[in-house]
Each structure stands twice: as structure tokens, then as C-alpha cells.
């Protein structure tokens, strides 16, 4: 004796909705999802994407909106998980579709251009959630839902909780690159207007320069200056090592933290180099005098010499005055 199939069972019971949430008897026009006839939806299932925060114990998902415009009927599912509620899944049918029509649909993503001002590459956009819907006899549905009707109710037509696959936080979907800012030189001059100026906006503390968004596919790491990369296959670990001269060796020029980085504006710095951080080259500073390094070098006048400081003029006068020395009327010796 033949038995009813899965879909056939479901057009005569609440599934995929919780018992008592839909299918309540009504008369006249369908106006509430509590009265949603069982033959409208016979099966559905949802997969939550990587970015979704969904608490299985407390969050639910449900048919939120049912509408008909001409021959097109729209089924909208939402969840009461906070951010997920902003990105519903919309299934559409025409009243001429076959019974048990199946449709797979992705929700919008917070990364889609309509949802954010940030430019996210298409490869990085992932739907918040995806789902499938199997509908019943569309002629019956068309009879029950008059043209122009919209029924919208949250938290009524709740779907069986086991019909979701929560893949939140289960994959590394892409890599993005950024660099922290380098430490930038400042002028010792106190007035603001005397500070070095860069021809681009310096990021505030805690922010980074974006290099590349959403790298996907088979990613390769390449050791650059002073870097070595090795793999420990036993622990499935990539080891990044740092050592002077490793990788591509010691750099001969500065590496930019973003491709268009340049040094400070020439007019704002006393140094004529083009160092990115705005500091001086080695030959642009007095680092030692006769081998004596700073920060303080003491100059002392010995016999016959007087050192006269003139701090106001940033001047040191070395006066070789031969004071207190025996002097001849004529000498063949030169002083300096």
C-alpha cells in the first residue's frame, strides 16, 4: 500500500514550523501568519554563514512576511538574532510555479555595496545566511492570498530549530592586510606650524593603513627583508622568523607601509633627504666629535686657550690668547 511522501505529509501538518505556531483555522481572508495554511510551505532549511552571531538556545528564525503582487508571491524569512534580523532571506514564486518548487537563496550581506559605504571586494562578500524553500500547490496559495495582500509579523511562524546549520566562525574566509603606522619624526620646535608635514593624512593611534582586502585562494607567504618562513608539518604551523640578513637580506632602502608613502614635505623639514619617517640620515647629524659621542660633549680650554661660550648666539669662541705663557719677542712657532 503506497504511503504519503515527505512533502505530502508536510502539506498536511505544521512542519517545517513549530506545532501551534501556524495552521490555526480561520475564516474569510488570510490576514495573520498564525493562520498560515500548512500547504503554503512544505519544507525549508537554512545555513548561517561565517559572520553570523546566532545563539541556538534563545534565537529563532521565522517566516516574517508574506506578500502577493500580481502573480508574484514573496516569502521573507528573518531571525531575531540581532544583526541577522537586518538581512532577511527573500524567496519568490509565481502563481504558475509547479507544486513543490524548490528555490535556493542567499541573504544580503553587510559587506554588499548597498549596505555599507565601505568598498568591499566582491570576492569577500559572503551572504549572512542561505536557505531553501519548498512550496506547496501554488494555485491553492494564490486562492488564499489575494492580490496586493501583505502579511508581516515577527516571531509568529517560527521554524523548527533543527532546520538550521550554524556555520558561524567555522572558516577562514579571506585574509586582509594592513600595516601600523611607522614612528614619525617630530620637529624639536614647539610651535605647531613648525612641525613636519606629510602630503597625506596621518592615521590616529590604533588605526592601520589598509593594504589589501579579502585575499582568497591559495595564498603564498614570501619572506622579505630579514624574514624567514618555515613550516612545521607535525603541528601544521607556519613559523615566521626574524634575523638580520635572512630572507631577501638587508634592505638598501626603506620599505613603505603603504604603496604611495613618501617622506615629509621638503619645506617642513630641515633635512634634505627623503626618509619616510622624516628623520635625518647619519651624515646629517653630528654624532661624535673626535670620537666622543653625545649627548654632552665638554670643551675645555687648556694652557693659553680660553673657551668663551655665548649661548644666546649659539656660539663658542675659542680664544688662543697665550695667557700666562712665556712669550718671546719673535717666535718661529705657529700657534695653529
Amino acid at each position, binding site marked *: 500500500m503506497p504511503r504519503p511522501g515527505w512533502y505530502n505529509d508536510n502539506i498536511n501538518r*505544521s*512542519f517545517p514550523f*513549530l*506545532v501551534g505556531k501556524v495552521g490555526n483555522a480561520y475564516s474569510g481572508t488570510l490576514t495573520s501568519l498564525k493562520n498560515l*495554511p*500548512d500547504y503554503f510551505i512544505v519544507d525549508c532549511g537554512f545555513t548561517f554563514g*561565517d559572520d553570523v552571531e546566532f545563539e*541556538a*538556545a534563545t534565537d*529563532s528564525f521565522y517566516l516574517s512576511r508574506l506578500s502577493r503582487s500580481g502573480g508574484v508571491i514573496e516569502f521573507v524569512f528573518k531571525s531575531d538574532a540581532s544583526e541577522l534580523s537586518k538581512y532577511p532571506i527573500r524567496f519568490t514564486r509565481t502563481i504558475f510555479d509547479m507544486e513543490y518548487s524548490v528555490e535556493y537563496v542567499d541573504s544580503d550581506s553587510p559587506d554588499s555595496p548597498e549596505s555599507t559605504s565601505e568598498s568591499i571586494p566582491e570576492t569577500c562578500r559572503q551572504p549572512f545566511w542561505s536557505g531553501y524553500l519548498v512550496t506547496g500547490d501554488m494555485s491553492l496559495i494564490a486562492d*488564499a492570498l489575494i492580490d496586493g495582500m501583505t502579511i508581516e509579523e515577527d516571531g509568529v511562524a517560527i521554524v523548527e*530549530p533543527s532546520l538550521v*546549520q*550554524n*556555520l*558561524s566562525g*567555522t*572558516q*577562514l*574566509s579571506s*585574509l*586582509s*592586510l594592513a*600595516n601600523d603606522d611607522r*614612528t614619525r*619624526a617630530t620637529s*624639536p620646535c614647539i610651535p605647531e606650524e613648525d612641525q613636519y608635514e606629510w602630503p597625506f593624512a596621518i592615521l590616529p593611534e590604533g588605526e*592601520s593603513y589598509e593594504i589589501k*582586502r579579502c585575499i582568497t*585562494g*591559495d*595564498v*603564498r*607567504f*614570501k*619572506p*622579505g627583508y*630579514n624574514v624567514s618562513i618555515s613550516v612545521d608539518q607535525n603541528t601544521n604551523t607556519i613559523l615566521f622568523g626574524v634575523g638580520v640578513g635572512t630572507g*631577501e637580506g638587508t634592505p638598501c632602502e626603506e*620599505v613603505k607601509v603603504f604603496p604611495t608613502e613618501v617622506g615629509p614635505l621638503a619645506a617642513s623639514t630641515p633635512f634634505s633627504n627623503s626618509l619616510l619617517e622624516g628623520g635625518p640620515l*647619519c651624515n*646629517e*647629524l653630528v*654624532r661624535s*666629535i*673626535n670620537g666622543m659621542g653625545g*649627548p654632552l660633549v*665638554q670643551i*675645555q*680650554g*687648556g*694652557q*693659553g686657550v680660553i673657551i668663551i661660550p655665548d649661548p644666546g648666539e649659539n656660539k663658542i669662541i*675659542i680664544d688662543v690668547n697665550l695667557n*700666562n*705663557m*712665556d712669550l718671546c719677542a719673535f717666535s718661529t*712657532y705657529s*700657534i*695653529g
Partner: protein
Amino acid sequence: MPSQIRHPEWRSSLDDTSYPFSPVVSLKNSAGMVIPSGVFIDAHLYPIGGDCGTYLSKVVVSSGIITLHIGDDGSESVATTEIAINALDQYTSTSGDTVIQLKDAYQRPAGVFISTPLRISIFAGFGSGEHTFTKDQTEFVATVCMPTPAIGVRGVILPDGSTLTGDVWLVGGSGVILSYLDTEVIGNCDVLSVEYPTIRIDAVGDPLFLRRLCEVENPNPDEDLFLTPKFIRAINVVNTSEEGSSNSWEAVPDAHGRIFVQGNDSLAAKASLRVRTTSEGTLELSVAGSSNYQVDA
């Protein structure tokens, strides 16, 4: 509204079955512990990298906490969940279902059990200790098992055990600079060229590291620990002639930042001006010769 014959509801149609366990398992372990067939209303198990034959492998009962482990052909514990018997409300939704989320070793979702507080509390009667089951005792039906393939990179595990997933940012900081190369061509025996997205890592240091250290470690941001030094960039030497005229020139350091002061040159072989450095770090300029200073007898 058309007349219809209502079929048994999904849940009630399974009430008298062992669902979501397989109809062929005993639900009884070697110690004689029996899992009542109705303990779970439904389940959906999707552990990452899971294998065939998912089953309830272990029930651990300890002081009000029930820990359920599910295993498969590859591992005895691919996911677990802890249930506080005295706080079942926190797992129970407004619809009355107790939805218990299973998680794997990295705290990633691995499935759900659907039950009720009354049904799940049956495990508390097992008594404290570990109660193990084998696959032929507690295997679930295939329809509730949907292992998630573990292909690709599922996440990055840090040394502290935390796991990063989704769009992971790699940020170069403190002298490390990351860059992206659009393509990298590598040849091998079978393929002439392959294009890879390539991340290059440079460890070039931070020339102004002292300033960075002072700023990072400064407990009081209102007070500068690092003041930009006023460097000496050159020494301006001014020579004044006997006639009073003067000329000047700028002594700049060499490639290593060094400046040398010396007391004579090749044109004055017998110069008496001496320039020496002392052990105290002093540059002393003096004239060699006898002093007319008289010491009293």
C-alpha cells in the same frame, strides 16, 4: 479554505520511535545504562571534519553539570556540550524547546540537540561519573548528521589557543611591514606558470624605536617621556683676521656622523696648539709651551 486531512505532526509522529537515534541501536551500554528513546526530540549534527557514523559517545555527570560528547568513526569526541541541570531555562526558548548547542574543540558550532527540560534531566539520574557508549549502541540516523567538510583553511590558531575565523586581518606592526604582490609566477614540471596571491613580509625595524617605546610605555599620556632632541647638524666655523674681517664655513659630519677637530695641519708642522680628548670625555684645547706662572717658594 480547502478541506484537508491533517497528518500526524512531525514531532508527534516520531514520539514512539528512537529518533534521532537509529532504529537499530540498543541505547544501552555495557554497564546497563539505558538512554530513554525520547530524550531528544530532534538533532542536527554538523561537526567540522566529522566522519560517518555519528553517535553519542559519552555522558559525563558531575555536580549538576551534564556533559554530552558525540563521536564518529574517526574520533570518540568530535563535539561536546555542557548542560547545567539547574539552569535549563537558559537553553529554553520561548517556544518551550530546549536547544542545546554542541561545539567542537575550538568552540565552533557543531550541531544542536532539541529537547525539553524534563527530557534532558533524565541524564541527571545516571549518577556521577562517565558513561560511555559505542557506535552500535547510540548511533544517530543519517538524516540528522551532516558533517561539515574540513577542506581549506578553517581558522588560524594563536599560541594562546584562540581561533581566528572569517576575514582575518594580518597587520604589520613595530618594524614589520606587509605588502601584497598581485601575482607571482612559479614554474614547475607540469605547469609553466602559476599565479598566487602573495603576502610579502619585511622585518625592517623602526628607526625611531626609542620614541615608540617611550610612547607605548608612557603611563601618563599627558606627559611626554620622549622629547625630540635638538640635534647639532653642523658646526659653523668663523675665522676673524687681524684686520677684523671674518669668513665662515660650515663643518658637516662625515657619512658616519663624525666631526674631527685637530690642532695643526701640514702647513704648520710645528704648531703648538694641542687638541686632545681626556678620559673624562672632554675635548681640551691648549697651547704647548712654558708658563710664566710663578710658584711661590
